[in-house]
């Protein structure tokens, strides 16, 4: 019975160690993980993200990532090697330099322009509702009725 308990305890301990080892293996690369790197890369032939591509060249890149991970290559070195072999088309995000800088600047510029336009519209709208003349078509208040309402309200106050 004691032997059985010991075996169960050993089994649980091994399972827990295995669970701990999984994230450790993912972080075994030099500051990067294979899944995260695959998300930063594109298949140069099918133009899908590498983690979603099953093309032969994607498999080839993946097997190289495994090799470079075990060799302790840095993320920059991995990206640099891939760009040297396949060109910048292999990068999911364009480099933030030269003409490709536009890809980083344009979304921000569009958002800023949108915010300016929205702000201008809100200001114009609030001015339109800020005590200006009544819009046409609305009947003017009869002065006699106005005086009666004032008198009635004064009665409530008193």
């Amino acid at each position, binding site marked *: 019975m004691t032997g059985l308990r010991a075996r169960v305890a050993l089994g649980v301990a091994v399972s827990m160690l295995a669970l701990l080892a999984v994230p450790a293996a993912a972080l075994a690369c030099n500051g990067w993980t294979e899944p995260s790197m695959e998300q930063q890369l594109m298949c*140069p*032939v099918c133009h899908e993200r590498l983690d979603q591509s099953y093309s*032969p*060249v994607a*498999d*080839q890149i993946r097997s*190289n990532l495994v090799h470079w991970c075990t060799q302790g290559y840095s993320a920059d070195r991995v990206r640099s090697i891939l*760009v*040297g*072999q*396949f*060109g910048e*088309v292999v990068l999911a995000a364009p480099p933030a330099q030269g003409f490709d800088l*536009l890809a980083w*600047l*344009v979304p921000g*510029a*569009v958002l800023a322009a949108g915010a300016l336009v929205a702000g201008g519209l809100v200001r114009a709208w609030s001015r339109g509702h800020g005590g200006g003349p009544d819009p046409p078509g609305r009947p003017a208040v009869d002065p006699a009725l106005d005086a009666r309402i004032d008198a009635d309200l004064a009665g409530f106050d008193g």
Partner: protein
Amino acid sequence: MLLLAALVLLFAEGLVRNKTTVAALAGGGQRPVAPDFTLPNLFGHGTTSLASLRGRIVLVNFWASWCVDCRDEAPLFQQIESQYRGRVAVIGVDASDFVADGRRFARQYRITYPLVHDTGSVLNRWVGQPSFPDTFVLDRQGRVVAYFDGAVVASNLSGVLAPLLRSGA
């Protein structure tokens, strides 16, 4: 606004470029003059340019080591290179591939014709969206006379080469 205009122009340029690749023009029945390229040799030691092969019938073959059909084609191109030496030149452009894998492939299939490595710029201009392999036949003046989208079959290729070899054009 300027940035937006630049983006629209870039998009339009991309569309135009896709329709003006050598493959698109040749597929549309035209005989465009093949744009020149100079690429590093797959095994190092300098570069090879397409212009250096002018005056001969040229087969420009885009291939990659992971491409299954390319394995069937390699012996065919090697045979043509040997059979028509001096009259027909073959140049293999290893693209979308690791140099080391390309070299291994070349050794395995004992390829002796010129092999160069492309990081995508030439492939993009010639083919756009590649199907691998992609092969072009150029006449002696450097005009594209045939384009094979996918594996080349010997009988189809000889059908294109025979009149060129006979005519001397």
